Every structure is written in C-alpha cells, then in structure tokens.
C-alpha cells in the first residue's frame, strides 16, 4: 500500500429514494429547474447527472393492475440513467422479479412477502443471483414489561406488528441468499431526527452482506453518522435531496471531509 491511499477503496453510497404511485412521484419533489416534479424519469435523470451512486424506486401503488405502469417507468428510467436502480414495492413472486429485472432494474427489493413467504428470497437468489435481491425491513423499537427493549419488524407502513426480532431476521435473510438489507426505522421515517443508529449498528455487525440505512435523515451529519456510527455501507434519503436542501455533490463533499470514502 502506498502512503495516502485509502485501505478501503470501495466508496460508501448515497442513494436518493423516489416514492412512486401509479407512475408519478409522490411526497413531492421540489427541485429548482425541474419542469415536472412528478415525473420519475426527469427526477432520476437529475440525480444521475448530480452523481448519485444509485437510485431506489419504491412503488407504493395500491392495486396490482396498475403495476404494469411500474415496469414501464423502470424501462424509461433505465434507458436514460446509467447508475444502479433498485426497485421495490409489491413484489410477490419470482415472476414479478423477472419482470422488473427485464425492465431494467438492477436490484429488486422484497419486503412484506419475505415475511409471509421467506422461501421467495431463496428462490429469487438462486434464480437471479444474490447480488440483485434486496430484503427491505421496516423496524420499530418495542418496549415491554417482560423483555428488554428490542427492534421488531412491522408491516403496513409501521402499523402492523409481526413480533419478529430484527437482527435475527436480517441474519435469516442473509442465510437465505439476500444480497443486501435495506433497513428503515419506522420510528424515525419522516422525522428528520437522524437514523436509528442502535439497530443499524446491530444489524450491520450481525450480517456479512451490505446494509443500506434509511429513515429519518434531516442533515448531512445524519448521513455521516449512519456510516461512521451505524456501520452502514450506503445511506438512503429522500426529502433532503428532493427539496433541494442539499445537492448530492454537497453531501459527498461533506462525507469526504469526515474521512469517508466517496465517489466524487
């Protein structure tokens, strides 16, 4: 190793997240210079130009019929955006994953279905390779009289408890072949209070696969904390980028100043 060279050349990733309903971005995007803030293609193109390391596209469309729109949107994005694209939301079967990969997704994220049918993760990893299978986990801190406080998986946007303990679940998913964990703290999501670092660290240490931290980012310091204290390999955020508070280059230069390896 030559002096001054990082020992860990792999860059930490910054991932903007788009919530998309029937082909339109919701939870508003408020970029200067964007003509149509609801157009996922235009927003994706903008993040691609700014130097985002990856994009996550979360389909929150309620009805199954409208999901064709998703594949179509993914196709349009993939034609113009030359960074990795993760697509999640409503993935139920191996054929859903195939459709999204064929449309141009690089990774597909499985959330609720992994809870009802963990074998889907194994089948998908065997069929398409672990590298494109992301397991998304929505967790909340649970206090009870009988046990120590712990983190459990929730479904339905954090409303429905499952009783499943988060760290053991992440390990199980990794063992089944997941290639990455997308961890969202439902306690922090939308609060701008920063990542839930305790559970982030616990899972990052417990699994050998990369971890994306999500939920609660309100400042650039939160991004750095997710990596340095939470041990995350990538950090995901929506509003701080969508509303033009910070650009991707600003976030990267901040992280670089904290000694974090980033792709400039």
């Amino acid at each position, binding site marked *: 190793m030559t002096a001054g060279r990082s*020992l860990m*050349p792999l*860059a930490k990733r910054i991932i903007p997240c788009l919530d998309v309903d029937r082909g339109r971005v919701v939870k508003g995007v408020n970029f200067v210079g964007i003509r149509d803030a609801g157009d996922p293609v235009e927003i994706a193109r903008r993040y*691609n130009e700014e130097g985002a390391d990856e994009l996550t596209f979360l389909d929150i469309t309620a009805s199954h019929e409208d999901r064709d729109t998703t594949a179509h949107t993914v196709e349009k994005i993939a034609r113009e955006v*030359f960074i990795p694209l993760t697509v999640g939301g409503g993935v139920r079967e191996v054929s859903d994953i195939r459709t999204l990969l064929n449309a141009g997704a690089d*990774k597909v994220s499985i959330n609720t279905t992994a809870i009802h049918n963990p074998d889907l993760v194994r089948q998908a990893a065997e069929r398409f390779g672990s*590298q494109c299978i992301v397991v998304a986990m929505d967790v909340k801190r649970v206090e009870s009289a009988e046990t120590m406080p712990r983190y459990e998986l929730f479904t339905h946007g954090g409303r429905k408890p499952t009783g499943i303990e988060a760290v053991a679940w992440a390990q199980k998913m990794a063992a089944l072949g997941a*290639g990455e964990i997308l961890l969202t703290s439902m306690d922090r999501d939308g609060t701008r209070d920063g990542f839930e670092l305790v559970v982030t660290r616990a899972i990052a240490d417990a699994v*050998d*696969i990369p971890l994306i931290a999500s939920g609660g980012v309100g400042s650039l310091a939160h991004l750095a904390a997710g990596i340095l204290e939470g041990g995350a390999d990538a950090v995901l955020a929506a509003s701080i980028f969508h509303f033009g508070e910070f650009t991707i280059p600003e976030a990267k230069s901040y992280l670089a100043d904290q000694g974090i390896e980033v792709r400039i």
Partner: protein
Amino acid sequence: MSALTESDVTHDPAVIGAADRVVFPGVGAIRDCMAEIKRLRCDQLLKSALADGHKPVLAICVGMQALLSRSEENGGVETLGIIPGDVRFFGQDLKDPEGNRLKVPHMGWNEVSQKVKHPLWADIEDRARFYFVHSYWASPVSEEVVAGTFDYGLEGCAALAKDNLFGVQFHPEKSHRAGLQLLHNFLMWNGTC
C-alpha cells in the same frame, strides 16, 4: 458520442454472425446462465465470433465469468473454458489489510487499476471508479490477460483482454461517465490491441 448504433438483443446465429460487434452481458447465477447459454447455443455463437479474429466482443459480469473454465458458484459449474482459469467465491471472512471485515457481495463503486494500455481504456483515468456487484471473482491462469484489477481484500481481475475480446467484471452500463466512455471506446474499437 458515436453516430451509430443499432443494437439487437438476440440469440439468432444469423444476426450475431452479421453483427459488427458482439456484447455478451450477464446478470444472474452461473448455473442457470450456463444452461441457457447451452440451450440457445450461445457458446458456439460466441466461439465463432471470437474465432473471427477481429470482430470486437465485450463480455460483462457473469458474461465474463462464463468465459473461464469453472465457477465455484451453485456448488461448482463447468463454464466455457475460453480463458483458462477459475471463478472463485470471495469467502465469508474477507478482510482488508487492517483486519476489518469486508462485506460480500462486493457491491458498489470501486477503483480499477489499469494493467495494460488498451483502446478500451482510452480517455478513462487510471483508478477511475466503476460499479461492481458480485460475490465471485475471476482468476485467470495467465496474468497476461488481466487488463485491470480491483482491490477488495484481494487483488481481483476487473477486466481481461485477449485479441478481439474484452471482458469486464464491473457494469459499464451502470458506471456513469467512466462506464459510458468505455462503451463508447468499445464502439470505436477495431478489435486489435
């Protein structure tokens, strides 16, 4: 960028035979990939494209891994044997030189050290970052074919070059400017080194 380019996604021997250049991409696990490659006779098509001697061929990710002799993935799979060597698992206890644990898959933007001068590296800085996502890495027998390396607990083959063949472990199509430059270079390449 180039004024070309028509591309076809095909396994039709006539189309591939008539093509000016061939891309052999790949995403997925090796056993199913090899099964499909054989079922569609892509192994023969690829070998004749390479035998042509000057038709540029670009193999990507699993496409590159399939060129070697054998892969450890899916319990061990015989592959095309065009480039002698093995494809190996990173291992569960991968560590950096300071002893910190490294996650597998090797996923994200890593630097590529260029080991040879090659038309496909034109206008790309040495140690530019490309996007990688893989749990297995190619280890060709001959170091002479290694055109670029990555560093991730070990020094692995990021790119290989032999005659009219160029193979990359990373995804140029997902590697933003450096990746688009490499694809542009491929379109400009006449298949010689």
